[in-house]
């Protein structure tokens, strides 16, 4: 770092850190404190978990689509979980459903998405050398890693992993007698989740601090890319809601392991009364959903942020309603905390209270619709480039709308009585949150792959991957609305209790399962593309998407500290695409207004006077200049 100003003595008792020290293999690639390496670690771990998590859904989809099919061929993997008649063990089915939910929501779409892109993009897009605390950031990943190891080990134990659904409602989850998975599997689940929460808190604290404290010269909040706004609000949501889940889990641990009665009231099992008195299982649901609902937005907001960036860049148009986008994200983040009881309409809640929560829930449609409209109006008459990232972003908008519309139906407390815990709910949240954020994740990987690895991904494979996934996901989840309206409950191993469920929708279920297998298969195209391009992909250029944001001003493969010299200053917002009068159809954030008189608007000409200040200001947030 030639430009590090060592003459600047901040403090006699702190010393300038030497940033040139070559680090060992372990410190560079494994226990790294560099945000880019940690982001890649999160990405790779997230991909592994996604394969496991989606793979599980394929196994239980086989059971649902083809209930009589012989699963003997799965014996090498599942062993005893395939019983003597070559059928899937019903308890293991429940465990699969539980683990699919847990893995996808927490490990893939929370850690894999936020962990990858918040870590990777926040310092690069706000103009920082690294995260506020590299050490806490490293700790965050390794807590996640250990949480993952523990969760994975629960798959291998004899009684199987947790089987009470990803929401782990007591008393099912609190009593080991309830289900094989409620024994050791549930204990491991709770330990793993406690570590995961710590990991997310460490990560989130870092993201918030970095966005607030380490922005470069000129990077005001009103010039932040929408990705950063989204990651920032996501981290705030996590910071406020994850401790509540920790409380809930802690009390559940006490109930399970020490015999307290927070969630357990008078219960008889096999005619025998348990000693527990005076607990309240509904209490757990309140605590769980106080996290659980913001969690939906923790999963969704980063994907929406990534989409904002990709759609604007590839439409070659400024994002429509930049401030409206921020306001709607703020609105969503605020409302996220006061709607949790819409998951509990059928718990015997006071109907008046239910109608309040219904009202608050339906209000979320407003900011969500603002976002959807803004995406469409950004696309409108844009000079659209259909890169794979762009296709996945447009796919996200499609899922967000079609899944969001059913949210209006479910948010209605009267309709929810019929639809609660049916496949309609499954269809709703898989579209609006599952598939949407997965598409956001994939779009992000396609878009920032060149920055991460210095190479491009194959576009043709990307197109095939997109169309198979897009069509496949609609084929999986659209029919589920019908089975849900017909009353098919979710999480059931087989529909044999009633005559009518035995005969109808068997073809539809088979169709859904085939579509699921096709969509899952398409993801292997992505995996091949990812790992092939990692080593053999076309070399990336400096700014392959002709994008405005700061990360494309770094070297093609940024080193430690991201920028070799001074961190560039920022003079304009990140969405100056196709500005009338400008020579190029993009003007990066680092170009001052004084250099673009041909395209400036009157109020921008007035800003030229202040540019000298920004340019000459010392970057006091530059971590290389600060004593550690």
């Amino acid at each position, binding site marked *: 770092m030639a430009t590090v100003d060592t003459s600047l*003595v*901040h*403090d*006699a*008792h*702190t010393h300038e850190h030497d940033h040139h020290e070559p680090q060992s293999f372990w410190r560079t690639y494994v226990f790294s404190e560099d945000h880019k390496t940690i982001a890649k670690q999160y990405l790779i771990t997230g991909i592994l978990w996604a394969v496991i998590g989606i793979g599980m859904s394929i196994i239980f989809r086989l059971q649902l689509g083809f209930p009589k099919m012989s699963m003997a061929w799965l014996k090498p993997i599942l062993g005893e979980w395939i019983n003597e008649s070559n059928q899937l063990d019903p308890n293991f089915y429940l465990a699969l459903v539980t683990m699919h939910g847990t893995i996808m929501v927490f490990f893939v779409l929370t850690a894999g998405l936020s962990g990858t892109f918040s870590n990777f993009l926040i310092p690069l897009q706000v103009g920082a050398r690294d995260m*506020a*605390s590299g050490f*806490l950031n490293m700790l965050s990943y390794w807590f996640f890693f250990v949480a993952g190891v523990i969760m994975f080990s629960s798959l291998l134990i004899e009684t199987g992993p947790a089987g009470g659904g990803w929401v782990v409602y007591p008393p099912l989850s609190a009593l080991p007698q309830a289900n094989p998975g409620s024994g050791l599997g549930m204990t491991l689940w709770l330990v793993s989740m406690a570590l995961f929460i710590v990991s997310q*808190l460490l990560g*989130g*604290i*870092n993201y*918030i*601090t*970095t966005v*607030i*404290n*380490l922005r470069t010269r000129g990077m005001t909040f009103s010039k932040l890319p929408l990705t950063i706004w989204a990651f920032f609000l996501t981290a705030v949501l996590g*910071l*406020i*809601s*994850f*401790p*509540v889940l*920790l*409380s*809930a889990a*802690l*009390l559940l641990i*006490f109930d399970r392991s*020490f*015999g*307290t*009665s*927070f969630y357990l009231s008078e219960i008889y099992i096999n005619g025998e009364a348990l000693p527990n*008195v*005076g*607990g*309240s299982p509904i*209490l757990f649901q*309140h*605590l769980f959903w*106080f996290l659980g609902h913001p969690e939906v937005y923790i999963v969704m907001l980063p994907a929406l942020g990534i989409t904002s960036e990709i759609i604007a860049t590839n439409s070659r148009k400024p994002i429509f309603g930049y401030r409206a986008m921020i306001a709607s994200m703020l609105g969503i983040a605020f409302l996220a905390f006061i709607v949790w009881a819409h998951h509990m309409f059928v718990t015997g809640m006071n109907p008046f209270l239910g109608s309040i929560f219904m009202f608050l829930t339906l209000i979320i449609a407003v900011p969500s619709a603002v976002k959807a409209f803004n995406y469409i109006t950004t696309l409108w008459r844009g000079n659209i480039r259909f890169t794979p990232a762009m296709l996945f972003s447009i796919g996200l908008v499609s899922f967000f709308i079609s899944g969001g519309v059913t949210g209006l139906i479910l948010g209605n407390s009267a309709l929810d009585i019929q639809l609660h815990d049916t496949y309609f709910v499954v269809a709703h949240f898989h579209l609006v949150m599952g598939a949407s954020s997965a598409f956001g994740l994939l779009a992000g990987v396609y878009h920032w792959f060149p920055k991460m690895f210095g190479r491009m991904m194959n576009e043709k494979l990307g197109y095939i991957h997109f169309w198979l996934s897009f069509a496949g996901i609609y084929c999986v989840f659209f029919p589920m609305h019908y089975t849900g309206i017909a009353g098919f409950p979710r999480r059931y191993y087989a529909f044999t209790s009633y005559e009518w469920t035995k005969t109808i929708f068997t073809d539809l279920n088979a169709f859904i399962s085939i579509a699921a297998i096709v969509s899952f298969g398409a993801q292997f195209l992505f995996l091949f593309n990812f790992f092939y391009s990692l080593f053999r992909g076309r070399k990336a250029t400096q700014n392959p998407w002709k994008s405005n944001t700061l990360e494309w001003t770094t070297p093609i493969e940024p080193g430690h500290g991201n920028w070799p010299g001074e961190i560039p200053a920022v003079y304009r917002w990140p969405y100056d695409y196709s500005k009338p009068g400008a020579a190029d159809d993009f003007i990066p954030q680092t170009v001052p207004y004084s250099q673009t008189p041909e395209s400036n608007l009157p109020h921008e000409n007035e800003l030229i006077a202040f540019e000298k200040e920004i340019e000459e200001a*010392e970057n*006091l*947030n530059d971590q290389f200049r600060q004593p550690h």
Partner: protein
Amino acid sequence: MNEELESVNFIEQEPEETLSMNPRKFILWLFIVSIIMLFAAMTSAYLVRRAEGNWLEYDIPPIFGYSTAVLIVSSLTIHWAYWAAKKDRFNTLKTAITITFVAGMAFLYMQFQGWVQLVDQKVFFVGNPAGSFMYVFTGLHAFHLISGLIVLLFALKASFQLRVHAKSLDQIEIAATYWHFLDILWIYLFLFLIYFH
């Protein structure tokens, strides 16, 4: 000591940062937010559960009142330590921070005695949630207080090595802020338990 002060005086004026808070202090505040949410969840769970009836009424052992007094004193002494550091009064600083640390340990011991008295009163961890919550609140607070003691230990070490002084206040500020927070958190929990027991 004189050498120490001399080198301090030669330091040029530190430039002001764009945001007046340094990242480490900011991280502390965010950490405090997460602890607040943890206890907010716990106390609201308490209220929700209590409203459902079947609630054990018992007297809170008086030792919790005394321990509160000790913790408030420790909060005053850490502020005294901070004031001493600002004025470069190293001996006072060392005394004050040591008293704080000892008071913190005393508080923990008294909390434990409180548990012993609860057991004597036949209020157990396992049983009516009214009692269980009492143990969870005090236990979780004690857990955080131990983390506060660890932070304090680092500040203690630094001040004995004369690394805490008027130009290097971050460490003592962080320790003091966290300690004051733990104090206020306990006062909140204590008043809450008295009012809603």
